[in-house]
């Protein structure tokens, strides 16, 4: 009986499943071909760069490849005393090769990242190494500079042996691996990244809160007003979307600067003294104001789309059953808008956490975010691997938020419209 139901044949005697697959295949191929361009586009512009970023942020092969023999010889070195002649000879051999290829400068830069003081002693070693005699390299190298006789420097070289490193990630958290190989924080006055991470979270959080507080009534109005008014209001909400981001940010600069329109107005109505105009830009206030305005539509639209589906009779039912307007709102209307709130907050928070142009233009020193730091390392210091590491930390932060949200609210509860 069961075998009969398993093998149902078509009238032509072909198994039904085979026939079905054959019939569906054409459609499947068509569907795939339709999405294929997007798929390739995503792979090229998204998956591949992120993979490259991940690789770049942990990649530390450069020194490994420059000193292959040295690191091989160092495998047996315990790191307590100075290494023995074998290591020095291997280092000399590697070094001569680098000098021939004119790459010793790169080595000095790289080693200097690990420990300050390598630059000058490598320069000196290059000069002196020309007159080195065969054998007893330990003595000869140590005589070049007293640092070459310092075990700390040899340990620093050994730390660069692994092909991969978590050093950039640690640096992003203001931490490093010290001489004993322990992970420690940098001195308090040199911790710049932690401050930036916290500030990024803080600004993103408050921008989300401000957006929510402003968007909720707007979205409610949009959803309940008669069509002709709500259309007009919708245009007002969407207008920022149709304006260039730079134009919008620039207009905030005109409004918020110390001689700007808002300050003029405050002086005009006597709220502040003319010689004591508050700074509303090039600080956190500037970032808050401009980012809230720019991200507001991302909160309004999901809220609106959810509120639109809530029947007005639910509020009426709440009231007719004896709930005051507030109770009816809080117990009936508000819980039903939670999917929209979740979607809007998630969207705004994630966008805010990686915001770049606006804080760069109006944020000043105290209003910049981690993304500005990433851009700084991409453009100015050219430490791309560090920029990649921070970018990935940001990405994983977003993923954690997404995961948390899924745990708390459930992703399928989200409604973007």
């Amino acid at each position, binding site marked *: 009986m069961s075998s009969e139901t398993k093998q149902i044949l078509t009238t032509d005697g072909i198994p039904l499943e085979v026939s079905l697959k054959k019939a569906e295949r054409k459609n499947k191929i068509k569907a795939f071909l339709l999405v294929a361009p997007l798929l390739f586009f995503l792979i090229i512009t998204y998956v591949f760069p992120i993979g490259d970023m991940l690789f770049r942020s942990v990649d530390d092969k450069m020194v490994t490849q420059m000193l292959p023999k040295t690191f091989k010889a160092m495998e047996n070195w315990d790191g307590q005393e100075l290494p023995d002649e074998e290591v020095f000879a291997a280092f000399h051999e590697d070094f001569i090769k680098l000098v021939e290829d004119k790459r010793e400068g790169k080595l000095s830069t790289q080693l200097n990242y690990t420990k300050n003081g390598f630059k000058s002693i490598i320069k000196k070693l290059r000069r002196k190494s020309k007159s080195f005699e065969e054998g007893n390299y330990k003595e000869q190298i140590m005589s070049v500079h007293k640092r070459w006789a310092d075990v700390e420097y040899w340990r620093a070289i050994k730390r660069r042996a692994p092909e991969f490193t978590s050093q950039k990630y640690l640096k992003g958290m203001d931490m490093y691996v010290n001489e004993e190989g322990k992970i420690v924080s940098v001195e308090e006055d040199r911790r710049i990244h932690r401050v930036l991470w916290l500030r990024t979270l803080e600004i993103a959080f408050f921008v989300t809160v401000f957006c929510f507080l402003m968007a909720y009534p707007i979205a409610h109005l949009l959803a309940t007003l008669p069509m002709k008014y709500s259309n007009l209001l919708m245009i007002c909400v969407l207008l920022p979307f149709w304006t260039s981001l730079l134009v919008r940010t620039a207009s905030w600069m005109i409004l918020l600067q110390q001689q700007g329109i808002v300050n003029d107005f405050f002086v005009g109505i006597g709220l502040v003294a003319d010689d004591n105009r508050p700074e509303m830009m090039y600080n956190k206030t500037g970032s808050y104001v401009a980012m809230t305005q720019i991200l507001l539509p991302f909160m309004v639209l999901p809220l609106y789309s959810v509120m639109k589906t809530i029947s007005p*009779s639910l509020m009426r039912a709440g009231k*007719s*059953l*004896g709930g*005051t307007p507030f109770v009816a709102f809080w117990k009936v209307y508000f819980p039903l808008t939670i999917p929209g709130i979740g979607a809007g907050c998630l969207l705004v928070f994630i966008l805010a956490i990686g915001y770049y142009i606006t804080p760069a233009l109006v944020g000043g020193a105290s209003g910049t975010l981690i993304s500005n730091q990433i851009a700084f390392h991409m453009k100015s210091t050219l430490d791309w691997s560090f920029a990649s590491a921070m970018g990935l930390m940001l990405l994983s932060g977003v993923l954690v938020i997404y995961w948390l949200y899924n745990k708390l609210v459930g992703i399928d509860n989200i409604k973007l419209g």
Partner: protein
Amino acid sequence: MALKKDFVKFDKVDKSYDGKVLVVKDLQLDIEEGEFVTMLGPSGSGKTTCLMMLAGFETPTNGEIYLDGKAISSIPPHKRGIGMVFQNYALFPHMTVYENLAFPLRVRKIPKDEADKKIDKALSMVSLQGFASRMPGQLSGGQQQRVAVARSLVFDPQLVLMDEPLGALDKNLRESMQYEIKHIHENIGVTVVYVTHDQSEALTMSNRIAVFNDGKVQQLSSPDELYEKPVNSFVAEFIGENNTFVGEVSDISGGKCKVKIANTDILANPISVKGKGEKTKISLRPERALINPSDQMDNIHSGKIEEVIYHGDHTRVRINLLGNNQFILKVPNSSANLDIKLGKDIKIGWNSEDARALDPS
């Protein structure tokens, strides 16, 4: 304890939304305590507006509404203590059935054990015991409807409003729900104001029916009176099936009038005609006209059968009678009437008191 005659009173109520058109005109309506009153009318006739004014979601433009002797225009909806069943049920989708029913009790701060008893009672009233923990989305339309009814009754309101509550259900379910609501009303004696555009629903359930048209109550009376004795031609045509003749009164005397139709005089019951020469529309229910009439009937005419439609328990026969080719007869399917054939001439008779001469509109 005598039941109040004017438990709910609409006193000269007008309602306009735009300041130009009156949706409700000079409404005067008394509803007795414990009564089941249906507001029946075509869409746009103002019946739902009246209900919304009673519930407090619309304010009267003029006039006053009294509930149990108190003017309620200035009382917000949540303080009126009126239960309401909405067209689309309006169950709170994020709450279980239990929480939906507990909502009106919680806002009234009723202790939990007492509230639980009331909820149990209300659920058993609509035979939904055991559904308390379900979400509304997991219930069928009929079950949701019954939850909505239970919720509107759970806090023991004196008055329950129902706004086309059965509109979304299929025909069979609708009919069984009609009886169910009717029985609940009979058992607990609550006053119900019910809005519908479905006349059979109104006839089945109500003590009295208010027929609305054009912002006015055309007739307020019991279902049988509404059907048998419509006071104007709108009601006659809106309720049930109706044969009409348009003519002119040629004589009026002794509680009967003669109306001239297509050169033939027929006898009718003068309801809204007063004198000779008035135009009138005569309304006659199909089942009051008989084929093979007995000789006592004072109207006997012959017509030609134009159409015969078989309906199972009866046959509908369309006849061309006195120039009206839309004259409908309902003939019970018995062996005596088997000779109804298309194109045949037959005699039809009725009593003049069943032919009501109404206004000509």
